[in-house]
């Protein structure tokens, strides 16, 4: 009996991974005051990841999380023969409440889906999805995504302009809402968890010309989830 079950299981795997799939993906920014940098989606095999909880970020993930640059992650995915969508929506960033939709055709072996995009403003916060097994039955599936901290930069919450987007450079690079402050002294200078983890949220303050943070606590905070992902399997 056990043997039969194993045989069934193997057969299910081979059936599930044997065919290409046509997907329509809709991604919604659920936050009230945070933008997302250009979105990166990749369908890949089961054992591949853009990031993993409790694991150090790759240099290329760091470039995305600190500055929104996804070109190196696109190269990574392409090298893995993944099916890639790197989709800057009109205007470049996904605004609060905005939905971006696109079609994705996956190759037979690319059974899992990952995504990343930096949260602005934040030091190294990103919205992510790590290797979701793509449903194989036709239907519409809804997922809610959380915000992660790449663990690569201290969350000082100091507005640093575009220089702040370079990997390893302190500060955050931009707030598309243009509600960032100035002259902050910095919330912290250390990052005590050097692995990818759930973001604890930004602190912010209400002093636009000083205080510890250049993030506005009334505008830029978030509660999880920060994004909704709807996958339509055809």
């Amino acid at each position, binding site marked *: 009996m056990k043997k039969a079950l*194993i045989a069934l*299981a*193997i057969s*299910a*795997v081979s059936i*599930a*991974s044997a065919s290409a799939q046509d997907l329509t993906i809709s991604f*919604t*920014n*659920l*936050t*009230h*005051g945070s933008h997302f940098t250009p979105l990166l989606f990749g369908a890949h095999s*089961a054992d591949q990841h853009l990031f993993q909880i409790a694991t150090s970020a790759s240099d290329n993930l760091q470039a995305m999380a600190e500055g929104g640059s996804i070109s190196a992650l696109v190269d990574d995915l392409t090298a893995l023969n993944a099916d890639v969508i790197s989709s800057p929506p009109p205007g470049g960033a996904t*605004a*609060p*409440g*905005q*939905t971006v939709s696109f079609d994705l055709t996956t190759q037979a072996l690319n*059974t899992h889906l990952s995504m990343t995009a930096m949260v602005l403003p934040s030091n190294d916060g990103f919205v992510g999805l790590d290797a*979701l*097994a793509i*449903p*194989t039955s036709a*239907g*519409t*599936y*809804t997922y809610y995504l959380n915000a992660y901290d790449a663990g690569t930069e201290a969350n000082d919450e100091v507005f640093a302009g575009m220089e702040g987007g370079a990997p390893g450079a302190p500060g955050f690079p931009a707030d598309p*809402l243009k*509600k960032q402050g100035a002259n902050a002294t910095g919330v912290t200078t250390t990052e005590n968890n050097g692995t990818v983890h759930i973001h604890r949220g930004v602190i*912010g*303050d*209400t002093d636009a010309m000083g205080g510890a943070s250049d993030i506005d*606590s*009334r*505008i*830029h*905070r*978030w*509660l*999880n*989830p*920060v994004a*909704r992902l709807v996958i339509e399997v055809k």
Partner: protein
Amino acid sequence: MQNFIQKIAICGVMILSISACSDNNDSPASETYGFSVQIINMTHAQPLSPPVAMLHTKSFKFWSIGEAASLALEKMAEGGNGSDLLALQPANPQFEATAAVLPGMDVEFTLQTADATQLYLSIAGMLINTNDGFSGVNSIELGSLTKGQTRVYHTYTYDAGTEFNSELPGTLPGPADGGEGFNPEQDDVTSVVTLHSGVVSADDNFNESTLGAADKFDNPTLRIIVTAL
């Protein structure tokens, strides 16, 4: 093999989050569809304004993420009055509570319809110690419930996008402030419905805020229990 287990796990999640199959629905077509609904306020100290509930067809919604709030939604989200939401479909089966649902308390009611196309439920109420925050469910599908079956929903908290979350004295209708409810002026930084970012409060270094640590909340805010009768 691990791959297979992952697929099973995901499949299990989907069965929980999408509706179960409707093949076993033993209701004759001519019968009345009845639902018992219980709303529990799970927050620490955010009273829920008298919640409103309605059965309706698939295409109707109280709100849509990313779209501007209707005037009726704005009145509910800023002032706690959901009457105008119910007036959008006045002939539909509906319920309006007579009092706020306090933290740790609940309200229970039933809704009935004989129209098999009206098996979608929406519920809304304001967290009244906020500027324009509300919670509820938006057009959840009930037609696949079999008689006696119960489904539990945990709700997110939304921001109507119609009033800046200033938290200033005089801008909140709840007991933490006793200030203004609905105001047609719109001054939010994001003018569409999104999820709510939470309140900051004076205890979190926003000294001008009329709110305190007790008014903070996190998701989820309501538990809604629906049983098909």
